[in-house]
């Protein structure tokens, strides 16, 4: 009985410690980014890795989601005889909600897991300690470019996703089902306001920071993990955790930002 309660306590303490470590890492990075020397090429490399190489998966998922939304909204709206609002329904749901969330989830799956595994392996093979021995700050050299790269890439990917998904909805609605082109495009232009686009922008900026931060912290602090860092198993556990935690926190944050900003 007492053992069960103390187990529970240790889980809670571990969770709090991890949250603390993660935000501590964020503060350290924010402080160190401001200090010279400034590294530009490592950031470009991360934007390439997180952003440019995610373009394919973002475009494919964007077109698919846009087409699915077009199809489902068309079928529902047709029953009420109001297919005229198809454009605004598709555009608003993509720009406000689905764009930022789907982009963040795709980036977690494609780049977040890779970031966590990379840092985790560097930690267990003592490469991070080697950097420290050479008086190179590992958080600035390894983590900071990934964080900045994530914050730059995710919003850009989000807007590409939005445009492509609106195109997918257009294809299904206008080309396949024959909704009038004018009502799709102009309905969209009339109902989407700058505040909707701004909401999407804020969401994707925060998601970009959040997912790269969680994935970096999980890998970078692998040696402090409660279960120890037993080689490949430790890395695999940390990577799984990083993907699950960052996906869940994206969904949670999406609701919180949505509730605060509208």
């Amino acid at each position: 009985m007492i053992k069960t309660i103390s187990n529970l306590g240790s889980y809670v303490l571990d969770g709090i410690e991890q949250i603390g470590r993660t935000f501590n890492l964020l503060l350290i990075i924010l402080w160190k980014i401001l200090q010279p020397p400034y590294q530009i090429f490592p950031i470009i490399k991360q934007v390439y890795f997180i952003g440019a190489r995610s373009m394919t998966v973002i475009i494919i998922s964007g077109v698919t989601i846009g087409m699915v939304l077009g199809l489902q909204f068309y079928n529902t709206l047709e029953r009420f005889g109001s297919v005229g609002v198809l454009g605004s329904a598709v555009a608003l749901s993509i720009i406000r909600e689905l764009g930022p969330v789907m982009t963040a989830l795709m980036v977690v799956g494609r780049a977040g897991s890779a970031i966590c595994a990379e840092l985790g392996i560097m930690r267990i093979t003592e490469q991070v300690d080697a950097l420290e021995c050479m008086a190179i700050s590992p958080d600035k050299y390894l983590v900071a470019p990934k964080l900045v790269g994530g914050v730059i890439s995710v919003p850009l990917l989000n807007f590409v996703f939005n445009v492509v998904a609106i195109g997918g909805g257009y294809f299904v609605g206008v080309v396949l089902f024959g909704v009038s082109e004018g009502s799709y495009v102009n309905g969209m232009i009339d109902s989407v306001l700058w505040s909707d686009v701004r909401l999407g922008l804020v969401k994707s900026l925060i998601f970009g920071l959040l997912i790269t931060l969680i994935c970096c912290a999980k890998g970078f602090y692998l040696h402090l993990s409660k279960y120890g860092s037993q080689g490949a198993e430790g890395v695999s556990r940390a990577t799984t955790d990083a993907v699950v935690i960052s996906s869940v926190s994206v969904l949670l944050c999406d609701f919180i930002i949505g509730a605060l900003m509208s």
Partner: protein
Amino acid sequence: MNKITIELLTGIFVLIGIAAFTWLAVSIAGASFTEQPGYTLEARFTSISGLREGAVIEGAGVRIGTVSRIDFDPDSFEAIVFLRINEGVPVQEDAIASVRTQGIIGEKYINIVPGGFDELLGDGDELYETESAISLEELVSRYIFSSED
């Protein structure tokens, strides 16, 4: 992969992203970074319930401007609405601004009916003739209570 290729591909990616953002912001959301040429009028309403900043201003059913700001005047308990009217659209001194709804459950917008005066309003002037939002509930309750006697 060498440094030049990575930089080139990253540059292309960033350009595509910025282009997508600009398209969304400018042609879909209609945000303009330089203020559209036009002038701002002030109008007071006793109720504008449901009107949002950025709402459309229509004249004869055509979009002629947007609501730029909404303030509350605590002294008279009225809403002050700032109307940004496009350049070249004349609004007479006795023109009437009313809060209307698109369809039954649509968005609120402001409709401007032209007046007969020769004097035109300029930047910062106040539009005195206003009609507030019509509330269906209020109409129904007025009907119920007036039929009692």
